[in-house]
């Protein structure tokens, strides 16, 4: 019997098919953004007694319907907000048991006692645009982060952001337990007390 050789399949159109698929995936792809500013809302139960907070420990940030910023009764630009918040948080004006021995601020007795007592209160109106609100939130979080970074640098020689990155990194060689402790310590020294009032 004659040997029949099967004809070779023409692979010339392979590229076309692959291109078609490629274009399909290119069009349907949405690289999802899954990062953002995390916040914790206050629980709704009204506590029986109101906690009394001294006025000097509250840093009021007001955003009006025209996206203008009023910080501690003064008009302010967004660019100045971060420094103002840092100045307030790191003031350390307290004495006695409220004394803050790691604060670098001016120690003004009219401003906050220590970072643990200092509260930033962010108020907005219904007409405020969301983009501005996020910008303000971002600046305030940045103020906390920069203080934490500085403190971590001083205590452990690495910045706070670096420490958090290391904590998530699986290949990081150091002791995670110790790192966790250090992170908690920094968090305790500069707790994020940011209240969003309706």
């Amino acid at each position, binding site marked *: 019997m004659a040997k029949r050789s099967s004809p070779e399949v023409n692979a010339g159109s392979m590229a076309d098919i692959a291109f078609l698929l490629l274009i399909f995936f290119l069009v349907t792809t949405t690289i999802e953004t899954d990062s953002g500013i995390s916040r914790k809302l206050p629980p709704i139960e009204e506590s029986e007694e109101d906690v009394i907070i001294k006025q000097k420990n509250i840093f009021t940030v007001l*955003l009006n319907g025209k996206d203008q910023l009023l910080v501690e009764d003064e008009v302010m630009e967004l660019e100045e907000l971060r420094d103002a918040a840092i100045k307030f948080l790191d003031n350390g004006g307290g004495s006695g048991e409220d004394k803050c021995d790691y604060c670098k601020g001016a120690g003004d007795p009219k401003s906050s006692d220590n970072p643990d007592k200092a509260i930033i209160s962010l108020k907005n109106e219904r007409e405020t645009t969301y983009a501005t609100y996020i910008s303000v939130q971002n600046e305030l979080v940045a103020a906390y*982060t920069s203080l934490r970074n500085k403190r971590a640098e001083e205590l452990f020689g690495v910045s706070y952001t670096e420490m958090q990155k290391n904590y998530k990194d699986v290949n990081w060689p150091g002791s995670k337990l110790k790192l966790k402790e250090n992170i908690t310590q920094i968090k305790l020294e500069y707790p994020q007390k940011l209240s969003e009032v*309706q």
Partner: protein
Amino acid sequence: MSKFNKKKKGELPAVNTASLPDIVFMLLFFFMVATVMRDNELKIKNELPAADQVEKLDKKDLVMYIYLGRPNDGFKDQFGEEARIQLNDKFAEVSDVPAFIYSERESKREELRPFLTTALKVDKEASMGIVGDVKQELRKVNALKINYTTRIGDVSLNKKN
């Protein structure tokens, strides 16, 4: 014969395209792997604001998404110009948010429920009024962990031009 050869030498050889399918396939595989198929189609404008102090949401299956924004062109007649809420595939009212949270909780295993986070994907032109209403509803159903989803970038990008 020799004349023939001489003529051919002067020409540029054609580029070999045999490896083209391989290159295209490589690209194809990259996109196939990197693609996340969107599970709900957006009926609203959803351009996120930028921020640089962001944290990553690790557990994607433990995130509930609430979209807010102005309805797209096709839905303007029906739903107007103001920012609206979209839950899953449908437009919703503020009062529908608790039911949505409950049903999302119900669909997760019990031990995972405390770790559920609500991601608010809000268009940057939306007003805070509706965002505040949604936040209030979330507080009522005790869904306190929220995340304002943003793009990564400098806040100066948020300014109106």
